[in-house]
């Protein structure tokens, strides 16, 4: 990082410089805080705007930044004076030691997670933990893994991934509310299971339709056109009211059944059939396992494909497109398969999302969603499945946990709403990443085939792709 600008020998800690840096950071923060934090216009009872002054808050934030910047200088200093390679080898050693247990432990945890929550919080209290944390994070893990195929493996920067999520969600919503009741009403309880593959296929089809004209573009141009595609889909959904019911969205979307047994309070419902007392928790737990299986399927397919010729061709395409052409690889088809398969998983996730919510509207598919999924992939380290999981937990879980921080109200007053600070989670995550892990949490690449010995490939070697 900044090491190159300093002398490599162990240098004395430059207190003056550190204080200067901290003071400068404090000045910048205070300058920013004056208009944003220190003054606040609020409506009073008579709907009049009253200017509030919150200088103490600006000062607290400034103080925090000064301290953080100073600690960072200290940290940089101690890192410079350690023997870098040795410590990282030590850390790698610890990682290598726990690595074999990481996958089974993690897998065991996510499998029993809903039951654990049920035991801890009871049927009423655990819905929040299973739904807001478990299901929400798993949806983003799945979306992250889907986008990872396009961005991480094939190196095609796609800023409109949410379009395929929307295609999946609307496919399910429209087929389940309009087509199935009119044509095959007896299939009603099976709607989710029939529409799941259809949504994925339709999303893949849209991936190919988008891919054909777009894949001649590279890099920034590709990114902009995919961004536009995402917006076009959303605007069509808003404006084609006959088709999608516009802003109002589609409601009373059938919820998934337990393979034909609906989750309701009737005599043929899940609870009655299995002799349980009716509770909405069963559906939530079932949904959790559905998205868990869907995500694991995504991971399994991705891992398999990486070891097949098509996966290697994706990565080769990211490394050097011209060399690929000289080796007889059809780059158009290869890019299209990456787009289609990535879109297909987005479609599955969308179908699940519609079934879980029971209501969808174009509001759910704004650009911010694409940005969040892309942030998860980038933060996780491009191409790394495990990194995507960690990044989803950090970003999505971080946002959800803000809702839980009610005690902050006692610190900052009753009007303080921590969930309004969710963008801060992004900001902090991105800044931390820039400082410590510029290539994402997991920056090494795992070879797809080995001759004798598995050696991780340093991220500095791997290309990021340019369209």
């Amino acid at each position: 990082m900044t090491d190159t600008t300093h002398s490599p020998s162990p240098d004395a800690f430059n207190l003056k410089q550190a204080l200067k840096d901290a003071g400068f950071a404090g000045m910048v923060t205070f300058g920013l805080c004056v208009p944003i934090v220190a003054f606040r216009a609020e409506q009073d009872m008579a709907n009049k705007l009253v200017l509030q002054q919150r200088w103490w808050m600006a000062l607290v934030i400034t103080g925090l930044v000064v301290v953080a910047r100073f600690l960072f200088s200290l940290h940089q200093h101690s890192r410079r004076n350690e023997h870098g390679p040795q410590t990282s080898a030590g850390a790698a050693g610890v990682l290598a030691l726990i690595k074999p247990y990481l996958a089974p432990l993690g897998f065991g945890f996510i499998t029993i997670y809903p039951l654990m929550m049920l035991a801890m919080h009871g049927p009423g209290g655990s819905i929040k933990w299973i739904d807001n944390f478990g299901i929400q994070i798993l949806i983003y893990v799945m979306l992250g893994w889907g986008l990872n195929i396009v961005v991480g493996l094939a190196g095609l920067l796609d800023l409109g991934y949410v379009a395929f999520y929307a295609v999946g969600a609307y496919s399910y919503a429209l087929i389940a509310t309009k087509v199935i009741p009119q044509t095959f009403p007896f299939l009603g309880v099976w709607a989710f299971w029939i529409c799941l593959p259809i949504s994925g296929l339709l999303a893949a089809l849209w991936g190919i339709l988008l891919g054909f004209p777009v894949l001649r573009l590279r890099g920034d141009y590709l990114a902009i056109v995919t961004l536009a595609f995402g917006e076009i889909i959303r605007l069509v959904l808003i404006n084609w009211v006959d088709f999608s019911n516009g802003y109002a969205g589609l409601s009373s979307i059938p919820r998934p059944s337990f393979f034909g047994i609906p989750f309701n309070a009737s005599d043929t419902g899940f609870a009655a059939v299995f002799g349980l007392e009716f509770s909405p928790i069963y559906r939530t737990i079932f949904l959790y396992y559905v998205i868990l299986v869907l995500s694991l399927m995504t991971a399994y397919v991705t891992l398999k494909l990486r070891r097949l010729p098509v996966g290697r061709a994706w990565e080769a395409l990211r490394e050097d497109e011209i060399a690929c052409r000289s080796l007889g690889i059809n780059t158009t088809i290869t890019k299209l398969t990456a787009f289609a398969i990535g879109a297909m998983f987005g479609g599955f996730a969308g179908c699940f999302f519609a079934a879980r919510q029971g209501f969808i509207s174009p509001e759910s598919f704004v650009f911010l969603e694409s940005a969040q999924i892309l942030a998860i992939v980038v933060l996780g380290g491009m191409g790394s499945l495990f990194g995507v999981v960690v990044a989803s937990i950090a970003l999505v879980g971080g946002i959800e946990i803000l809702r839980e921080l009610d005690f902050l109200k006692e610190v900052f007053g009753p009007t303080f709403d921590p969930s309004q600070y969710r963008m801060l989670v992004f900001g902090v995550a991105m800044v931390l990443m820039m400082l410590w892990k510029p290539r994402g949490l997991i920056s090494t690449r795992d070879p797809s085939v080995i001759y004798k010995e598995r050696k991780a490939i340093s991220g500095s070697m791997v290309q990021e792709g340019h369209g």
Partner: protein
Amino acid sequence: MTTPLLKIEHLTMRFGGLVAVNDLSFDVRKGEITALIGPNGAGKTTVFNCITGFYKPTEGRLGLKHPDGKTYLLERLPDHHINWKARVARTFQNIRLFQGMTVLENLLVAQHNPLMLASGYSILGLLGSKSYLKSEKAALDKAVAWLERINLIDRADDPAGDLPYGDQRRLEIARAMCTDPVLLCLDEPAAGLNPRESLELNALLTSIRADGQTSLLLIEHDMSVVMAISDHVVVLDYGVKISDGAPEEVRNDPRVIAAYLGVDDDEVAAVEAEVGL
């Protein structure tokens, strides 16, 4: 050994008003090493790009006749078919390896098309079919055989970008050879090599010729390589062929000497003696 493998007829490539290659005709004969030489900017790489499908020639015909008698017109094939169907492979002047992939992976990517068929366009591969696993094993064996041949087997699991320059050159040739070409086009394979590496390269190229499956066409500035291994030399200057023949003939062609050294014909002998030609 004089059957023409690739017949280049009246090849012309214009970029706007610039004529990079003008009415060029020559043959690449089967089982030979043909060298394409010429001063900088003579249009050699343009000829390569036309042969390997990166450019579509403005005029001309590039007929490649396979040993089985089938003829491919390279100027009409889509670029990925030039390697896959017509079996023409190439390397690049500035090495283009997949740097973040291992040495072994580089050689497997080169066998993409046959493996793709064997994996049933990934479907059989996803299901883990026996026939695919067998083809994958065969592809690995082939890659390993090439790594042994170019002495890089100990580095099979290292990223290609970590290799020293000379090794990267050899790996790029091995990668091209993994596509089973009938014609291998090498763009300045000896550039940046030290004399020892250059000798190793000569040995590798002559051994490929000795295998009998692949004919070679190379662009080279290093005359020690050209004169030592090539059977046939074509000289380009300003996009026009100025000489064509055995190395001995070309070396003594006054037009070649003039193009390279830029002197009057009567001074040639003196200059020649000076540079040790």
